[in-house]
């Protein structure tokens, strides 16, 4: 986005859409609207538990030790490890599966191709609450019939997240691969390369910016999910999202709610995600607008 600064002062004024006072007012208002709660979150995370419970905006007494305590009170370490393992594995597998699926969809004609493309979009909007119960029942039945325990393991989350991430990641790869000149893989085909070889040696190296976006969105889906994780995990395999939610609920009605620590833990859960976004902002924004899914 920063690459579009060839416009000098004059032509820049031509591009103006709002009168300057109005523009400034809009920007200030929105920054306050967004920044207020975010600033409060940061301040409260280093405030004492009592201070947060009493509704202080500016901490009267700083308590950065919140960031030390959360590792024992919230059980955040285990949650973060589970989240990283599950979401990370989902991201890798999803990247691999989405690039091969998208490659076939973009470069080859076959019956049912448009139906699959349509399905990619429609599947993103299926309510998770519709799928939760039957997925649960299916996994539970696997335990009965095949004597494999799925529920409570990381595998349950991995398989679920992988499947739900796949349609959107594949759609991202479809929009990306369309932009690649087809002459490259056609040249490789004329040289006698197999489809698998073309995929791994030509398509993947050329499409890694799209692939990174597809992987990151799969990662975020796993990292952000509460619905499936709240039912398919046990205390040992809980993700960070569920750990935080359980800890938050347990603070209600307690004598001294540990709100300072809760805020610190929330911030720790948010930082990897926000950092990922900011680092890859240029690519991710394109991905977001490609299907408009978080």
């Amino acid at each position, binding site marked *: 986005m920063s690459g579009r600064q060839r416009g000098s002062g004059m032509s820049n004024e031509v591009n103006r859409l709002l009168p300057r006072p109005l523009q400034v007012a809009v920007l200030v208002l929105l920054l306050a609207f967004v920044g207020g*709660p975010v600033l409060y979150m940061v301040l409260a995370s280093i405030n004492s538990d009592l201070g947060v419970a009493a509704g*202080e905006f500016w901490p009267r007494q700083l308590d950065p030790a919140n960031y030390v305590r959360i590792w024992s009170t919230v059980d955040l370490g285990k949650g973060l490890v589970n989240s990283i393992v599950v979401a990370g594995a989902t991201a890798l597998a999803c990247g691999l599966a989405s690039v091969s699926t998208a490659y076939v969809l973009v470069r080859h*004609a076959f019956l049912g191709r448009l139906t699959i493309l349509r399905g990619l979009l429609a599947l993103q909007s299926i309510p998770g609450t519709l799928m939760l119960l039957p997925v649960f029942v299916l996994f539970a039945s696997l335990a009965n019939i095949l004597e494999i325990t799925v529920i409570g393991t990381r595998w349950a989350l991995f398989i679920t997240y992988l*499947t739900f991430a796949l349609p959107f990641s594949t759609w991202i790869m479809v929009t990306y691969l369309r932009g690649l000149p087809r002459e490259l893989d056609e040249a490789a085909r004329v040289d006698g390369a197999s489809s698998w070889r073309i995929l791994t040696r030509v398509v993947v190296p050329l499409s890694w910016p799209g692939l990174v976006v597809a992987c990151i969105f799969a990662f975020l889906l796993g990292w952000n999910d509460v619905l499936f994780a709240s039912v398919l995990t046990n205390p040992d395999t809980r993700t960070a999202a569920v750990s935080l*939610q359980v800890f938050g609920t347990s603070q209600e009605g307690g004598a001294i709610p540990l709100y300072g620590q809760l805020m610190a833990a929330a911030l720790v859960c948010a930082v990897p995600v926000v950092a990922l976004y900011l680092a890859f902002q240029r690519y991710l924004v*394109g991905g977001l607008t490609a299907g408009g899914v978080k």
Partner: protein
Amino acid sequence: MTGTEVVRRSEQTDRRAPDKPSRRSITQRQRPLWMLAPGGVLVLVVIVIPLLLALWISLLDLDQYSIREWIHAPFLGVKNYVEAVTDSDLLHSVWLSVFYAVLVTVVTTPIGIVAALATQQAFRGRGLIRSVFLIPYVLPAFVVGTIWRIILQPDGVANRTLGHVGIHPGLWLNGPKSFWTLVLIQIWASWPLIYLLALSGLQAVDPQVHEAAALDGADWWSKLWHIIGPYLRGPVALAMVIAFLHNVNNFTLPFVLFGVPAPDDVEVLPVLTYVESFQNFRFGLSAAMAVCSLVLVAIPIIVYLRAVRLDTADDPDTRRREA
């Protein structure tokens, strides 16, 4: 990656599919359709089969006692649906969900458009402002819920700050105000989606259009309304459909904000379905409710599918634009 081709999809068939007819003979022999298999199997096992299973369960009398042997659970026919409609909170929840989703979409749309208009032209610090604008949207919903849950505690920072100026709003997370709390926070968290899509619409405006408007001496309002407006109509309409779908399917935010069982005023459909399954263990009834929720999203999904262009493969124009 401008994937949202908002041009209305012209009727296309497989005949116009990517490979030129002359090359077909080669490619048809080497179509690696097996590469679709991993994704296909996953979607079949984790989406298609469970969807059918949900339909089947919605016809059964399934509770925590019969769940182990769900294949032998008594068949009820449509009784669960009858109970869901006549003797449960379903209609109340459907109304809440639709009202909430529409309200949030309608309020976030002007905010997102105005934000896009204000950050379209380059100025110093614009990159930073754009990043900040994205923060509410990129924060995980469970984090957003946690933050606001603490802000809105009865003795929390919101009530204390408002108390200084003489306003005493009372309870946010319980009672009749909780619905508006949910709306407000979802507005806070979701407006950047509209902003992003509106911004991508503005970037499609040819620079010459700006110059022409300046030459004509158009004032800013008529420039916006008559010249820029038409560029925004498509992207914003699509953004509204997507925003509605997000809002109506949102489970995490109400779940984390209010906990379960939720107060009556915020028992939106996803939460109701969840509570019926995993708190009341009325699995059959819950499945019937979930199937009803599918009807709720069906219309927006169809609109969405018609708005997004599926096949741009042999349109050289769009192929170039990706780069």
